[in-house]
């Protein structure tokens, strides 16, 4: 990318690699750092869940139904007397799993479609672009609901369903970036030297469109969590795992959310914390990669 060249020329600090420049500018951005800390906390909570709190099990504790937050139950208990804190902590694992699986699927489908429809000017490119547009206009939640209802609510299936409908955003951004490098001299030079299309796409185009892809990956993870919570809330979650959406579904279905504020508040805060963290990281990366926005 041209901006990379600029970076090299303007560089006062010699012997500094591009990665170091990127890391330095990323850490100057407050939002990005806050997001990074948030994501690290989420990953730690997911990994250390067994050491933080025991998973809820059994049919509940009918002595302690809908108890407000206390020392024994920091987030209170639900309408079955189960500890909400434990459900929220263990729900982190579900969300993280769904987020990463989704973004993986979206990458595998979206990036090739974006590259092809941005680089070539043929039938295949038109189809790729058309499909992207179609899936951007269609209401995807009802589609996800049908598919989740058909294939069953295993957590991997949920991630598959969300991933299958999350790629269009990635495809569009990849296509736009590919279009902007498509006619640059180094691509023409590679073509002139007889490099194969695949090699050009893989070695020359992909590295230069990876920045916007990276930014969008974080946004896709954030959106995937909202989708997973939404599906769980509608009763399509995996019945065998803890999920923030499911806690809210229970709160809503039992009607207990009206009398017990803690029932819906804590899982929702967890969702918001997750989504905001990933969105902030995305903003941080975007600013660190964009020399116009970067604070020097």
């Amino acid at each position: 990318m041209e901006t990379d060249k600029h970076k090299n020329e303007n560089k006062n600090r010699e012997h500094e690699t591009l990665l170091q420049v990127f890391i330095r500018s990323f850490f100057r951005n407050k939002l990005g750092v806050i997001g990074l800390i948030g994501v690290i906390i989420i990953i730690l909570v997911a990994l250390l869940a067994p050491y933080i709190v025991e998973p809820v099990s059994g049919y509940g504790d009918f002595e302690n139904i809908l108890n407000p937050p206390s020392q024994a139950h920091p987030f209170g208990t639900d309408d079955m007397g189960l500890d909400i804190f434990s459900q929220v902590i263990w729900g982190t694992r579900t969300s993280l799993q769904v987020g990463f699986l989704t973004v993986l699927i979206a990458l595998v489908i979206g990036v090739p479609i974006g590259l092809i429809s941005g680089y070539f000017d043929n039938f295949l490119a038109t189809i790729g672009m058309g499909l992207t547009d179609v899936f951007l206009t269609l209401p995807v939640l009802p589609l996800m609901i049908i598919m989740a209802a058909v294939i069953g609510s295993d957590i991997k299936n949920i991630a598959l369903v969300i991933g299958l409908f999350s790629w269009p955003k990635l495809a569009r951004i990849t296509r736009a970036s590919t279009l902007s490098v498509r006619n640059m001299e180094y691509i023409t030079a590679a073509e002139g030297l007889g490099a194969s299309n695949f090699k050009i796409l893989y070695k020359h185009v992909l590295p230069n469109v990876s920045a916007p892809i990276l930014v969008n990956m974080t946004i896709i993870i954030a959106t995937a969590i909202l989708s997973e919570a939404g599906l769980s809330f509608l009763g399509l979650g995996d019945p065998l795992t803890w999920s923030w959406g499911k806690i809210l579904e229970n709160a809503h279905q039992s009607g207990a959310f009206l009398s017990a504020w803690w029932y819906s508040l804590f899982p929702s805060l967890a969702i918001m914390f997750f989504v905001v963290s990933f969105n902030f990281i995305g903003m941080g990366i975007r600013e660190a990669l964009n020399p116009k926005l970067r604070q020097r």
Partner: protein
Amino acid sequence: MTNYIIKRIIRGIITLLIAVSVTFLILRFMPGDPTTIMLDPRMNEAARARLLKEFGLDKSLIVQYFLYIRQLLKGDLGYSFIYRTPVTQVILSRLPWTLLLMGLTQVVTMLIGIPLGVIAGYRKGTLLDHLINAFTIFGISVFIPWLGITLLYFFGYRIPIFPIGGAYTPGVEGITYLKDVFMHLVLPVLTLTLIYLANYVLYMRASMVDVLSEDYIRTARSKGVTENTVVWKHAVRNALIPTVTMAGLLLGRMVSGAVLTETIFSFPGVGRMIYEAVGQQDFPVLQGAFLILAISVIAMNILTDLIYAYLDPRVQLN
């Protein structure tokens, strides 16, 4: 212009065809017999065999696909397991509520979002701009059911200004009926507005920043046109054009919000129906709801594109 309209409608039909094909694929290529999914499990064997033949499920996939399309063209979406009536009929009776909810939300988000975006763009970098930005980040990060539940808790339960669910009180008629429906709509519309406001604000803000740096704005200023006229007349007019496309894109996404919001507020639209159908495993209804919502979104998208073409003469030249 006629050419453009025809082209746009053809694209809409292709989009719809893809939507239909995707549902066909989902329903036929999934593990398990499609008949178990599309037919009522409580049906006896003889009736089942008859229906299988009627739907052509004993034929090859390609034939099935065309039969499926023919069936849809006739407006036949099958029978609902729960309601025991044609799906088309059930959904069409619910659709006006969803369209009302989404239409109102669209209008309110535009009326609030566009001016906010203009102000944020004009006062770029000020405290006001940052506040508006923080608010929009909240909008894209919040989980819709929680926002609904919270509003319901405060304004329906704690301070009972608004009804806690439904779309109307049975038995109310005349002017009171209109007022009653309005009161029922306030919280659902507010929920969706808070969520989707961000889209207009961010889009309008970016668009304003672009437009304000253009030459004709400087010319207007140096001519001595008042700042208010420059911003609200010269700049906003051009900045609005790309925002119209936002309205179209937002519709598809707003359906997701409508499903969740209607579920929370027991609003009798298609979204709430989808939620109920999930619980009952009523696949004909799920499929029908998706297709009819898709048709609505596609139709409204064509409409916004036509408005866009009307506003921006450059589109017609291409």
